[in-house]
């Protein structure tokens, strides 16, 4: 047992992060599976009901069970953040790999594109993309995904620049491995530790960006809801039932706290 205590003392973030994240995922999972209410079912009698046995977290302005909605919203937010980070990582790797490995004119031009996109404040870019495609869960994912590509590309590129001159890459080239194999079989696995921690940070930024977008009215559209959407809706009833806003805010904060601690912990012993 004290071997575990020693390990925790060595890397507290990892364990705290893992616990918080596990708890939050459990809460969302339970909400999705075992709560008897349909997240969209309205019930006039339960408007702004206080937390009770029937409704663990009370109800919102339409009398919908808050716990069911938080679980549904949580699932959507996690889905959006995951999908966004996936797009960002996949395209980031492709762009980063080629610019980092080959360099030359291609690198210059793509890097300039990167700077241009990074010069755009992220929410602004999402705003423009949404106005083009209209809002909705998948549009949010695509617009945020695009916004995340440059930051991942930059990270992957610097890793490729670091690795491409190491001896094991030269010996691979000497053996006759062609460039693609070298890039994606040899070099890429070495970027995973750095990629992992920036993915976690990316995940958090995606959740926060989605919340800001919902606040500006361009995020996920009702009746489907995300935590960001719920928080910006809850704001209108801050004085009447502060529970709605506070519970949603705390849920978002704990999810992000859990993931960022997890990220730090992973970085520490990577």
């Amino acid at each position, binding site marked *: 047992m004290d071997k575990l205590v020693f390990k925790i003392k060595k890397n507290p973030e990892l364990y705290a992060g893992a616990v918080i994240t596990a708890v939050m995922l459990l809460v969302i999972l339970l909400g999705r599976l075992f709560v008897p209410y349909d997240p969209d079912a309205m019930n006039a009698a339960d408007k702004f009901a206080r937390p009770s046995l029937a409704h663990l977290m009370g109800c919102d302005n339409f009398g919908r069970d808050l716990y069911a909605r938080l679980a549904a919203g949580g699932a959507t937010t996690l889905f959006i953040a995951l999908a966004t980070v996936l797009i960002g990582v996949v395209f980031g790797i492709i762009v980063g790999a080629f610019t980092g490995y080959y360099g030359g004119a291609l690198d210059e031009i793509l890097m*300039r594109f990167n*700077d*241009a996109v990074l010069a755009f404040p992220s929410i*602004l870019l999402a705003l*423009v993309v949404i*106005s*083009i495609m209209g809002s909705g869960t998948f549009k949010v994912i695509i617009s945020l995904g695009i916004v995340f590509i440059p930051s991942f590309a930059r990270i992957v590129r610097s890793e490729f620049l670091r690795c491409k001159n190491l001896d094991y890459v030269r010996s691979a080239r000497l053996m006759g491995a062609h460039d693609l194999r070298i890039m994606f079989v040899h070099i890429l696995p070495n970027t995973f530790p750095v990629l992992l921690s920036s993915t976690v940070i990316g995940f958090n930024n995606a959740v926060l960006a989605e919340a800001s977008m919902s606040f500006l009215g361009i995020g996920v559209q009702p009746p489907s809801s995300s935590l960001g959407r719920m928080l910006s809706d809850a704001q209108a009833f*801050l004085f009447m039932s502060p529970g709605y*806003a506070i519970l949603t805010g705390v849920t978002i904060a704990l999810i992000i706290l859990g993931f960022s601690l997890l990220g730090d912990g992973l970085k520490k012993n990577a």
Partner: protein
Amino acid sequence: MKTVLKKSITFIFTVLLVTFFVFIAFELIPGDAATARLGTNATPEALAKLREELGLTRPFFVRYFSWLASFFFGDMGTSYSYGVSVRSMLAQKLPITLTLTLMSFILTVAVSIPIGLLTSKYEDRAVSTVLDVTGQLTMSVPPFFLGILVTYIFGMILHMFTPGGFVSYNVNFVRFIGYLVFPAISIALPKAAMSTKLLKTSILSERNLDYVRSAYSRGNSTMDVLYKHVLKNAIIPVITFLGMTLADIVAGSLVIEQVFSIPGYGRLLISSIANRDYPVVQAIIAIIAMIVIIINLLVDILYRVLDPRLRDM
């Protein structure tokens, strides 16, 4: 000197790229300024006439280059919806946002450097773990929710400021700055937490390097080593981070201006996009992109000043 030349070429190229992005974006967005102006009374002939009047019917490239040329000489055209020169509108709006951004930036630096030093010095004491956890918490809350909490606590309960009581700088400068304090706090808090953490980790990692051991071997105290040797090395990554966060602070002010009803660039930009008011949107985005890139340029130069190894690159 040559690197500065190279940097400025990339600067111009990037700004061009950004404005081109915006122009294409506007080609794709459904509806245009004419439909916005005429609203429910739009009839086909009226729309055609107004579009002609606003010059929307000219081919895409002609419009882009004529806008670019005029923009270059400072004439940003007139706003479709307000009929006022874009420059005069921005001259009113941008100072507000720039002051807010500047105050948030100063607050971030003023908070993060002392606390970063503090937590790295007394690393294992309770106070630094408490500061770390609060730092993590402020980073995990969506910015607008933080803004609401700040308004609710400081505005409604402690009455330290009247929510919505924005006063423009030409009316009363002190009250203008006074009001901007709380929005600046809401933007600066998460950024300060991030840069504090970065500074702390950077100091701790620099501490294990060889030159620190040789500094100790010459009889330096822990404080001397921290201030004379480690800080100057540790501050370098923080400077780049602070440079990069400026772009986020500008974006952050877009959201916080809504919460604190501050008539900065944010509100104008959103309504102009809704009204398809090209000249205003174009001007705002180009200016913001320029500001952000200039900041990156400055950070890059500061980087070279601080780190002699890069000087000859």
